[in-house]
C-alpha cells in the first residue's frame, strides 16, 4: 500500500500520473523522433526535388523508347553513374522542341558552357563506398533500386538508402539478381524457373567469393 503524502486522496494519483506522464512523454518523444528520423519520409522517398528543367523520364523512356544508356553513358563502367552532359540533351534538342521556353536553361547552359545545376536524387553519405558499375555487372537491375523510372514524369527517390536497405539485399543477394542482359529492361518478365535461375546467377557472377563476404562492414565502409 502506498503512503499517503498529500492530504487530498486524489492528489496522490495526480502526482503519480504526472511523473508517469513526464517520464513516458520523454521516452515516447525520443522513440517517436527516432522513428521519424528513420522513416522513408525523412529519407525523401517519393519526394520529387525541384529541378532546373522538368525532365520527364516517362516521356523519354516509355514514350520515345530511349534506352537508359543513351544518356547515362557511364553506368556500366563507372563507380558514379553520372548525370548526362548538356551536350547529350542538345544532340536532339538542337532540332526537337528547340524553341520551347522549358528547355531554355539547357540550351543556354550549352551555349554559355556553364553547368546546369541538377539536384541529386540519390545521394549516399560520404562514409559509404558505393560503386554503381559493380551492381550493374552483377545483375542488379536499374528498377531494383530506382523503381519504375520509366513511369516517372519527375524522378523521385524510391529507396531510403538506409543501411538496413542495403544489407537487406546484400544478405539476400538471390532476391534481386537477374541476367546481365536484362538489367536495363524496365518491363522484364521473370521466367518460370526464376528461383533456380537466380541461384545459378549468384554462382555464375561470382557474387560470393572466398576472400570476403558482401555483408562485411569493410565492403561499404572502407
Amino acid at each position: 500500500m502506498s503512503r499517503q503524502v498529500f492530504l487530498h486522496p486524489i492528489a496522490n494519483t495526480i502526482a503519480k500520473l504526472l511523473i508517469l506522464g513526464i517520464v513516458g512523454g520523454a521516452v515516447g518523444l525520443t522513440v517517436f523522433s527516432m522513428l521519424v528520423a528513420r522513416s522513408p519520409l525523412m529519407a525523401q522517398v517519393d519526394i520529387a526535388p525541384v529541378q532546373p528543367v522538368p525532365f520527364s523520364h516517362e516521356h523519354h523512356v516509355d514514350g520515345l523508347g530511349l534506352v537508359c544508356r543513351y544518356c547515362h553513358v557511364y553506368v556500366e563502367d563507372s563507380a558514379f553513374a553520372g548525370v548526362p552532359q548538356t551536350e547529350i540533351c542538345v544532340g536532339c534538342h538542337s532540332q526537337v522542341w528547340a524553341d520551347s521556353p522549358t528547355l531554355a536553361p539547357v540550351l543556354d547552359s550549352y551555349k554559355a558552357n556553364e553547368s546546369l545545376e541538377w539536384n541529386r536524387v540519390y545521394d549516399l553519405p560520404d562514409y559509404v563506398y558505393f560503386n554503381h558499375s559493380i551492381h550493374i555487372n552483377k545483375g542488379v537491375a536499374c528498377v531494383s533500386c530506382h523503381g519504375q523510372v520509366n513511369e516517372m514524369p519527375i524522378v523521385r527517390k524510391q529507396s531510403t538508402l538506409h543501411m538496413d536497405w542495403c544489407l537487406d539485399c546484400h544478405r539476400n543477394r538471390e532476391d534481386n539478381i537477374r541476367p546481365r542482359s536484362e538489367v536495363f529492361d524496365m518491363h522484364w518478365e521473370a521466367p518460370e524457373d526464376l528461383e533456380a535461375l537466380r541461384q545459378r546467377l549468384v554462382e555464375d557472377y561470382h557474387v560470393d567469393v572466398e576472400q570476403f563476404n558482401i555483408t562485411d562492414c569493410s565492403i561499404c565502409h572502407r
Partner: protein
Amino acid sequence: MQLKPQLSKLFKFCALVCLLFVMTGCRFNMRDQPRYEALEGSAFFEDGRASRQMIEDTVARDNLRTDEHFYTGQIDGVPVETFPFPVTKEVLTRGQQRFDIFCAPCHGRIGDGNGMIVQRGFKQPFSFHIDRLRDASPGYFYGAITNGFGAMPIYATRIPPEDRWAIVAYIKALQLSQNAALADVPETELENLENQ
C-alpha cells in the same frame, strides 16, 4: 561554488546526457565530408565545377593514339576499307546492342532512317540501304560516328572506339540482311525461316 558530493555526481550525469544529445550533430559532418564528389559544385574553381576538364592535349598513360586506322578510321586522310580487328560474332552482337542504344532512336532498328526521334521532328537521316551508303567503306561510317555528320552530333564522347567499330560492323551486317535474297540463306537456316 561548492556542491555536495551527490549533487556533483548528479550534475555530471546530467551533463553527460546533454552531451549525448549534442553528439547527434556529428552525423552531418560525417555525411558530408570536406571532399568533392563527382560533378559536385565548387566555389574554389572559377567555372564552379569540382570535376576538372582534361587539359587540352593531355595523354593518359597507355592512351597515346598512334594507331591511326583504329582511332580515326582513316589512313592518310582516306577512310579505310577494312576493320582494325577481326569481326566475330561477339563483335556483331556488341555492335547490335550499341546500335540499338545509340543509333536506333534516329536511324531505326533496321537502319531505314525512320526512328522515333525522326518521327518527332529531327532531320531524317539517309537510309543505310541506299546504294551510296551500301558502297561506303567502314572507315566512312566510323568517321561519321566519331565526328558527327550533318545534324548528327559527335558520338565520340559517348562511344569508345572499339564499340564504334562494332557498330560499323553491325551496320554492314544490316545492309547485307536488308538486301539479301532467299538464295543467300544457308540451307540449314532455310527451314527455320520458312517456319516463321
